[in-house]
C-alpha cells in the first residue's frame, strides 16, 4: 500500500501541476483556431474553427524569418556560451580563478537593468559596424548568458567532485583529462540545464533585439510584439504564432528523453 502510494502520489501532483500549466495553452490553441470576435465571446462559443490564422502568420507576417532568426541566434549563442561558461565555471569552482571579486564582477553587469545598457551597447556595435546583423545579436546574447550560465555551473562543480578528480590525477590523468573525463560527465545534468537556460534566455530576449535588429534580423519576440498594434491586439494570429513558436519543445523532446534519463544515470555512476 505504502509502496503503491509512493509510486502514485508524485504522478498525481505532477499531473495536477501539468494541467495548471497546460490549461492556458489549450485556450491559446483554441483562440488560434478562431477569430477575434469568437475569441471574446462570453459564454464561449465554438464558432467556426479554421486554420486561417496559421495561414495568416505566414502570409501577412515574415514569420519564417522571425522564427529562423530566433532559432539560429539562440542555438549559436548557446553553442558558444555553453563550453565557454563551463570552462569558466570550472576554473572558478576548482581553481578559484580571480577570487570572489571576479566572480561577483562577472555577474554584476547583469544586475543593471538592460534598458540602461542598451544605449552604450548600441554605440559599441555601431562603432564596429555590426548593427542590424545577427552577429551583434549573438554577441549581445552571449553577454547575458555567459554570466548566468557560469554562476549556475559553479554550483555543479563544487562539492565532492574534487575528490574524484584527485583520484583520477593520482592515476595519471592530466588537468584536461580530469576536467573533460571526470568533471564534465558528473556535472552533465547541470550542463544540460544550463544549455536549456541559455537557449531560453536568448529565445525570449526582447530589448537588445529591438534596438540592435534590422528588418531581416528581427526575432520572434520583437516580431510578435508588433501584433500589438495601435489599432488593437491581433490576438488570433498571435495565438497561432505562439503555438507554432512552441514547436522547439517538441523538437527537443526526443533529445530530452534520452538525456534526462542519461543525465540521471551519469549522476548515479558516482
Amino acid at each position, binding site marked *: 500500500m505504502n509502496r503503491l502510494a509512493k509510486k502514485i502520489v508524485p*504522478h498525481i*501532483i505532477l499531473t495536477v*501541476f*501539468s494541467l495548471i*500549466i497546460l490549461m*492556458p*495553452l489549450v485556450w*491559446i490553441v483554441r483562440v488560434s483556431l478562431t477569430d477575434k470576435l469568437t*475569441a*471574446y465571446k*462570453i459564454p464561449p462559443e465554438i464558432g467556426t474553427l479554421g486554420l486561417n490564422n496559421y495561414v495568416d502568420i505566414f502570409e501577412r507576417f515574415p514569420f519564417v524569418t522571425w522564427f529562423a532568426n530566433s532559432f539560429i541566434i539562440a542555438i549559436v549563442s548557446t553553442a558558444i556560451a555553453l563550453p*565557454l*561558461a563551463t570552462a*569558466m565555471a570550472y*576554473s572558478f569552482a576548482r*581553481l578559484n*580563478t580571480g577570487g570572489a571579486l571576479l*566572480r*561577483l564582477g562577472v*555577474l*554584476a*553587469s547583469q*544586475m*543593471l537593468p538592460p*534598458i*540602461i*545598457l542598451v544605449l552604450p551597447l548600441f554605440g*559599441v556595435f555601431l562603432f564596429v559596424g555590426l548593427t542590424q546583423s545577427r552577429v551583434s545579436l549573438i*554577441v549581445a546574447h552571449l*553577454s547575458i548568458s*555567459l554570466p548566468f550560465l557560469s*554562476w*549556475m555551473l*559553479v*554550483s*555543479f562543480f563544487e562539492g565532492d567532485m574534487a575528490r574524484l578528480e584527485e583520484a583520477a590525477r593520482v592515476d595519471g590523468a592530466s*588537468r584536461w583529462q580530469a576536467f573533460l573525463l571526470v568533471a564534465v560527465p*558528473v556535472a552533465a*545534468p*547541470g550542463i*544540460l540545464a*544550463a544549455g536549456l*537556460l541559455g537557449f*531560453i534566455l536568448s*529565445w*525570449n530576449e526582447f530589448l537588445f533585439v529591438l534596438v540592435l535588429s534590422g528588418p531581416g534580423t528581427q526575432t520572434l*519576440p520583437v516580431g*510578435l*510584439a508588433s501584433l*500589438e498594434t495601435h489599432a488593437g*491586439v491581433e490576438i488570433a494570429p*498571435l495565438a497561432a504564432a*505562439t503555438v507554432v*513558436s*512552441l514547436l522547439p*519543445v517538441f523538437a527537443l*523532446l526526443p533529445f530530452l*528523453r534520452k538525456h534526462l534519463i542519461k*543525465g540521471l544515470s551519469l549522476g548515479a555512476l*558516482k
Partner: protein
Amino acid sequence: MNQSKTMEAADRRFGWFMSAPSLALLLAVILFPVFWALFTSVHDYTLIAPNFDTFTGAENYISAIQDPAFRHSLGLTAFFVAAVVLFEFLLGFIVALMLNSVERFKPIYYGILLCPLLMNPVIVGLIWRMFLHPSLGIVNYLLTVVGFEPVNWLGSTQMAIWTIIMVDIWHQVSFMIVLLLAGLSAMPKEPYEAARVDGARVYQSFFYITLPLMMPVIIVTLLIRMIFAVKTYDLIYIMTRGGPGVATDLVSYSIYRTAFVSLNVGEASAMSAILLGFILLLTVYLYRYMRSLT
C-alpha cells in the same frame, strides 16, 4: 615544496586559460556599457542634450532617493521579488522532487512545463490580459460558472500586484524546476543508500541529505531568479503600465520611464546603480552564506 609551488602556478595558469575566452568576450562587450552607465550617473546626461559637459556628482543619486515615487517602486519591487521567488521556489522544489522520483512520463511532464518558458513575457502578458478580461475573459467566466463573483484582476489597486505575481509564477516557475531538477539529478546516490540501510525515513533523508547537498544549487537558483525578477519590466509594461494608480509600478519600469520618457538618462543610471548596489549586497550575503556551508 618547490614542486607544489610550480604545481600551484600551473593550476593558476590553467584556471586563467579556462576563463580567458569568456572574460575576453565580456570585457569587450559589456564592460564599456557598464562603465558608461556608471559614468553617466554622475553627469547631467539627457536625451535632449546627450553630452557629458556637466559633472553633477551625487546629484542624480540624491534626487532619485528623494523621489517618493522611486522609493515606492523600490519597496514594491522588494515585495514582488520576495513573493515570486519564494512561491516559485516552494512550488518548483516540490515539482522537481516529484519529477526526480519518477521514470514514466518524465519527458512528457518536462516538455509541458517547458512551454511557458519558451513564451516571451510580451506574449504572456498579452495572452493573459485576454484571459483576465473582467467581462469577456475566460477566467472570470469560469469563476461565475462555479458561483464566484467576477474578479477585477488588473483594475483593482489591491488585486493587480497579485495578478502580476500569479502570471509570473505561471510563466517562470519552470525555471526553478529545470535548475533544481538538474541539481537533484547530479546528486550522489551513496548517501541515500547508506541512509536506507540505517533505516532513515523519507523526510529524514530529505532534511539531512538532500537539502544540505542541494544548498549550493538552491542558492544559485534563488539568486539568478531574483536578479531576473528585479528586472521584471515587460510584463508590467504590457499588463498594467504600473497602474492602477501606482499599484504595480516596479522599479525597472520606473527606470525605463526616467530614461526614455523623462529623457533623463543620468538619473535613470543613478537609479540603476542604486539598484545594482542592493542586489550586489544581497548577492555577497548569499555568496558568503554559501561558502560558510562548504
